[in-house]
């Protein structure tokens, strides 16, 4: 093991750059999939004829495929039908598609968990369906969704490492390049990379816990 060699200034900078790519890809995908997940989950909850059924089919298909396959598909198969993307765009697209499907299920079950009596009370006072959804059901459901949504975000952040397969220069990718030079770098680099993932993800779960206890 060669800690000093493995963790040289250049290597640290290279790892840090990779980590920034990881965080950047994760952040964009989180924002996009959160928005799309809420829209799809709500549309499915609302049981709109045709639309809800079609969305159900799409969501179920995506949820039952491995993310790795979706990443491959986005980067290698889509160009065959004329959709070409950069590595970064492909990674964001694949992650967003997959995580939106996962989040939409969290949103849908969160909405379903709200007592029907709440809806009856609101509707019987003259509120429209949309008003009932946005003022009564959604705010209560969102509070319940916080823990599963955050844990989905943590998964997403870790899943960015799968994009190593299309050579996205994220943390795992850059780590590989470093330890490929020297077998003695492997363990030090793995330890450092683990610490980096851990700090961010553990931070996220602490935030989730705080949000949970505040609403209790």
């Amino acid at each position: 093991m060669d800690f000093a060699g493995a963790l040289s200034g250049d290597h640290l900078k290279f790892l840090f750059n990779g980590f920034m790519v990881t965080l950047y890809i994760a952040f964009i995908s989180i924002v996009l999939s959160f928005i799309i997940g809420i829209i799809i989950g709500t549309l499915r909850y609302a049981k709109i004829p045709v639309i809800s059924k079609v969305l159900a089919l799409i969501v179920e298909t995506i949820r039952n495929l491995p993310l790795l396959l979706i990443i491959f598909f986005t980067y290698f198969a889509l160009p065959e039908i004329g959709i070409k993307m950069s590595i970064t765009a492909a990674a964001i697209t694949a992650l967003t598609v997959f995580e939106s499907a996962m989040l939409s299920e969290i949103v849908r079950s969160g909405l379903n968990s709200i007592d029907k009596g709440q809806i009856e009370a609101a509707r019987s006072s003259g509120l429209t369906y949309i008003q009932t959804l946005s003022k009564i059901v959604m705010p209560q459901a969102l509070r319940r969704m916080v823990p599963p949504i955050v844990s989905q975000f943590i998964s997403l952040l870790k899943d960015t490492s799968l994009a190593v397969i299309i050579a996205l220069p994220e943390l795992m990718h850059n780590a590989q390049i470093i330890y490929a030079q020297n077998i003695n770098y492997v363990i030090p680099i793995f330890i450092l990379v683990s610490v980096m993932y851990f700090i961010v993800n553990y931070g996220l779960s602490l935030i989730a816990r705080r949000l949970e206890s505040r609403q209790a």
Partner: protein
Amino acid sequence: MIQFAAVNKYYGDFHVLKDINLKIEKGEVVVVIGPSGSGKSTMLRCINRLESITDGKLTINNTEVNDKKTDINQLRRNIGMVFQHFNLYPHKTVLENITIAPIMVLKQTKEEAEKTAMYFLEKVGIPDKANSYPSQLSGGQQQRVAIARGLAMKPDIMLFDEPTSALDPEMIGEVLDVMKALAKEGMTMVVVTHEMGFAKEVADRIIFMDHGQILEQAKPAEFYANPKEERARLFLSRILNH
């Protein structure tokens, strides 16, 4: 004011409401009693279309409730409803619970709506709870807030669906007192309940239902002294002699 004409309702093959004919006048207090599963709550919930009817005609002030052209939200403004399980919004304060519909539906200003809300909170006896959350209140207090929430829309009709059935015995009185006061002020009320004392004291008319049918309609004194229907007699003997 409320009129059922030959109303039937089915849940699939199950015939829940059978040929309901009922006319409720303005200012009348009608108490609906009967064994559980007799269709009392279903009938009540048809009035504001929480349940739809299968056939027949149901009108409120000559507006057909189940007509596609009827603006149901417009109709519901005018009908307050109080539920067995209160159904207060847990994420909103008492004041917000009461003001949300007046603000969103009647387009009142926040100040106006809060003034009205405080007026009705005084009326149900808990103005000091305005800024509490429902979970901080007792069951009786929650139900009184629910009544204030219904009244804040200044409805012509108030529906009560077993308003005291989920309450501890010592809290039933405070809710019934509010309802009695409301009845004395001339509110049109339809009340599904098992509170025979309330029915005797306040009702203008008792409706007895069983198996989806209205079996008997009578003034309370008449009904309790001499129920005509065998099933009503049996029901009363079970409820009163224990």
